């Protein structure tokens, strides 16, 4: 038990977990029944389930973002890609005679994912082949992508009625929201692919020192293509869930600022924007912190207008706690405590 605690204290996940716990405790104090989960029609309902379900899109985007950031990159285009995938799916459903048919929905989803694949390859091409800085390379798609999404929807907000598609966003399967399953699958795929094989280590190597990893025989170009494509597909999946939630494709506002939330989740999870080591578990915690934050704002009754100020405060606190300066100060404080305790023991004996 103490070993586990010691490992936790040394872990980069300590502060995000503390933050998550603090937020949840605040919630419980504000609303004593916060943790209660009720079963209605065989489906689970409750604030915790809401956090998981509403946090799923951010988490999915953040998983893709983690791998991109691990290569010392960044993907600003995820919001635009999500908007495009939603627009594509909705326009296909609208164009078909039978939008409620599962086969039509499957076609819409597959086409949306294939298009995101192309967009991801495009980002990968700019970064890996042309050697453009990732922030600028993906800024191009971020700016142009919303325009493309508006081109697809012709400037309208497309609304569709299709029960199978709706299930993606608000459906349940064995009592648990479908979106949670999707997020779990994406997480499992990313974790298995990168942590059960050498892939993750190679991604980290590229992030730490591209030149050295090239000389060690790692083909950085292919890896970069892979991570940007994976990120775009993740974004598209998130976009589909968000679109299915509202059953409307809004090219301008769908998944707005999701890139910032995703990057924030990654950073709160302890992955450095400078590339190199990454932690998918950290990203999971980070995404949960962000979603819990939003829920807390509503639960505690902070006026919604102050949400962003509250968010800024939490982000600042987490970043300052994780900062090397703070950690050094804490470490020296702990050492001085230990020294004093040691002296106490010595004098007692």
């Amino acid at each position, binding site marked *: 038990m103490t070993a586990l605690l010691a490992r936790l204290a040394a872990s980069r996940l300590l502060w995000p977990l503390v933050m998550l716990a603090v937020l949840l405790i605040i919630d419980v104090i504000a609303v004593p029944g916060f943790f209660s989960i009720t079963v209605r029609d065989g489906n689970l309902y409750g604030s915790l389930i809401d956090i998981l379900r509403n946090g799923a899109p951010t988490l999915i985007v953040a998983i893709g973002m983690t791998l991109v950031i691990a290569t010392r990159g960044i993907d600003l285009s995820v919001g635009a890609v999500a908007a495009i995938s939603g627009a594509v799916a909705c326009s296909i459903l609208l164009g078909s005679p039978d939008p409620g048919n599962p086969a039509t929905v499957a076609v819409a989803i597959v086409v949306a994912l294939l298009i995101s694949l192309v967009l991801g390859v495009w980002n990968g091409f700019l970064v890996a082949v042309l050697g*453009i800085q990732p922030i600028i390379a993906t800024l191009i798609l*971020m700016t142009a992508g*919303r325009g493309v999404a508006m081109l697809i929807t012709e400037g309208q907000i497309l609304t569709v009625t299709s029960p199978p598609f709706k299930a993606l966003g608000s459906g349940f399967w064995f009592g648990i929201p479908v979106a949670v399953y999707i997020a779990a699958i994406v997480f499992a795929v990313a974790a298995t692919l990168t942590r059960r094989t050498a892939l993750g280590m190679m991604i980290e190597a590229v992030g730490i020192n591209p030149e050295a990893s090239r000389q060690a025989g790692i083909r950085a170009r292919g890896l970069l293509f892979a991570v940007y494509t994976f990120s775009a597909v993740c974004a598209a999946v998130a976009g589909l869930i968000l679109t299915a939630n509202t059953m409307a494709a809004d090219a301008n506002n769908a998944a707005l600022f999701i890139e910032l939330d995703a990057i924030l989740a990654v950073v709160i999870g302890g992955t450095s924007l*400078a590339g190199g080591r990454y932690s998918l578990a950290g990203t999971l915690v980070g995404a949960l912190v962000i979603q819990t934050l939003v829920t807390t704002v509503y639960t505690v009754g902070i006026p919604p207008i102050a949400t962003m100020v*509250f968010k800024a405060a939490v*982000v600042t606190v987490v*970043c300052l706690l994780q900062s090397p300066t703070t950690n050094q100060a804490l470490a020296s404080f702990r050492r001085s405590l230990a020294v004093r305790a040691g002296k106490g023991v010595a004098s007692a004996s």
Partner: protein
Amino acid sequence: MTTFTSDQTPASAPPTLPAPGPARKPAGIGARVRDAFTSPKYGPVLVTAVLFVAVFVAGGIRYPGFLSGQVLLNLFVDNAYLIVLAVGMTFVILTGGIDLSVGAVVALSTMIAASLLQAGLPPAVVIPLILLATSVLGLLVGLMIHYFKVQPFIATLAAMFLARGLCYVISQSSIAISDPAFIALAVSRIPLGGTMSITWSVVIAVIVVVIAVWMLHRTRFGRTVYAIGGGEQSGMLMGLPVARTKVLVYVVSGFCSGLSGVLFTFYTLSGYPLTAIGTELDAIAAVVIGGTLLAGGYGFVLGSVLGVLVLGIIQTIISFEGTLSSWWTKIFIGVLLLVFIALQRVLTARRR
């Protein structure tokens, strides 16, 4: 490292690259021009300048009345706030940082201006107050970045949330400005002979640009900014005031954002919490199109001004075209960004 002239800091002169550029090989004009265009320092700016002129001439051929002085001046009138914003962003990017908060700070300034003017305070009090507030915000961000080693992307993201959130706290709806002195300053035009005229915003923007150029090229502070971008560690070892400078560039950016917000208020004569969303990306795009390297160390304020003008001329062309839908603007700017960056890559890559 091209920013140090040998007489000022002899010890710092890099061993391998003394005075790059045309001076090394006295050759014909053609070779000199090619050298200038492919140098990492001047090349991107020159490419942008040439493309700007090309777009302007192309517009003149396609649309009657395009090739006039007032169209050119209107680029400044409409984008004065963006020029000031891009100047501040240039300082930050030259050190290798980034400031995502500028758009939200512009919105915050419009809100402070509108609400304080509504409360009856005179502009002579309100404007300095805004500049002070945004500079302090910049200072806090700078301290967080330097002393707590928070990545600039994240620290300024937090500042963006804070500024945007404060906008909503001040008011959730638009506040109109009715202060006569403020309106007079905003709408009065300065005739430049003929039918041409500019606004006071343009004058302020030009003054900011001149001061920024002077600061970057004629002061210790400016040289340190370039040195940090070239290599923070080296700058530190050379005994340059790295800490102070790194914090100060965010103060400069905060100040510029505040001033830009004031100019934006001149333009809209109201405060609105949702205004200027995404403006930080316009500013970053302008700086990059203007040839400043995001990694820091290379770039010019005048390049960023040119970048703003390029973004402005695209908007102008789209409004002259008239039939293009608004979403084409976004696609256009994206494509243009790509063209510029690809060109810069190709030209500077050939040199290596």
